[in-house]
């Protein structure tokens, strides 16, 4: 339901038709499918599907995000993010699991929280011998 429903999903979830323009925050506990135009935030606890005809100007946040349309804004997927060949993203993306298909346009910064953790873990053992060396010089 719009306006922040806490209970589980009921019904088909929100669908925004191709001839619909929305301004404001679209929030739903169920899936959201967008074929139209939205200026504002789009938030779902489940999945967001942005179809080929869709245009979103604002941040997008969900567990699973599939993009075939155009997005100007940051996108956060706590689970999987898929950018289809027709997808166009101008903004930063944050995802655990990312798939960008050939033909898609992505202009922005990509952050993968899990990947960053792994990199930090790899860097840590390299620093310790350096400390030892310093100690020997003293």
């Amino acid at each position, binding site marked *: 339901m*719009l306006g922040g429903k806490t209970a589980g999903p009921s019904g088909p979830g929100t669908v925004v038709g*191709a*001839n619909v323009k929305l301004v404001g925050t679209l929030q739903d506990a169920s899936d959201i499918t967008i074929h139209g135009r939205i200026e504002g935030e789009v938030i779902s606890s489940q999945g967001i599907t942005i179809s080929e005809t869709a245009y979103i100007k604002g941040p997008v946040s969900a567990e699973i995000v599939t993009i075939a349309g155009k997005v100007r804004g940051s996108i956060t997927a706590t689970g999987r993010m898929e950018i289809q060949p027709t997808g166009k993203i101008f903004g930063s993306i944050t995802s655990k699991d990312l798939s960008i298909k050939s033909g898609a346009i992505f202009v922005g910064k990509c952050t993968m929280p899990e990947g960053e953790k792994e990199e930090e873990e790899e860097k840590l053992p390299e620093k310790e011998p350096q400390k030892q060396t310093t100690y020997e010089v003293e």
Partner: protein
Amino acid sequence: MYYYIMESPRAKIASRQEKIKDILGNLGIAGETVSPSAARTIEELTHLGIIKGYSTIVAVGPESLVNKVITVLATQKEAKDVVLGVVPDDFSSQIAQKIGAKDIYVACNALKNRKLETIDLCLLEPNKYFITEGTIETFFNQEIYFGIDNLKGKALTNKIIIKPGLEAFFYDKSLHGSPVASFWRWLFGKKQKDIYSSFFKTKRLRIESQNNLPLKVSGETIAKTPFTLHNRSRILKIIVARDRIKKES
């Protein structure tokens, strides 16, 4: 215990009403029966039933009568514990499907068995309620402005269906395309993917348009745009049939 509000008796429905009274009598649930007249409206009769202390008020007749009874039951504080029963006149209607009544006998038996369900209602500002769906329909696509909670929107639509629970379906004539295109699709048996229809579930919905479009409930115009609807969840106890199969939404 039972208070029956029946349609004004006309020659057409008189025999049907007699049949209902017979069935109710045989089931042992006959009660006070009233009908609206020039002196007393359906709303006034419902109010009287509440004042008299009846625990079950039964609307016998069309959906428009049921919606009028519901409006009084939902707005009056004294009606908090009153249960609504329905004996529809058309068993293919939405209200008949909602309570699971296939015929007069099932509807009357349900009243005796008193299986209760708490249902959602749509509130049309300032004080009209309805249990069945409301429709706005035009021949051509119209530009509609709507507000949903903290969202404002504009849509091209030729039909809006609003169901209790405030589920709004916006249909768009663009889906059918030009007559030539729809002919070719029909000829080759191709189905067009529906990217034009919209669906929203909300607590509050405001609809505005350039022309005053009518909102029809059970074929009766109850409002014209602009209007505001609210969802009143689990507000009314209604008697349903025992063997009712719930429709998956």
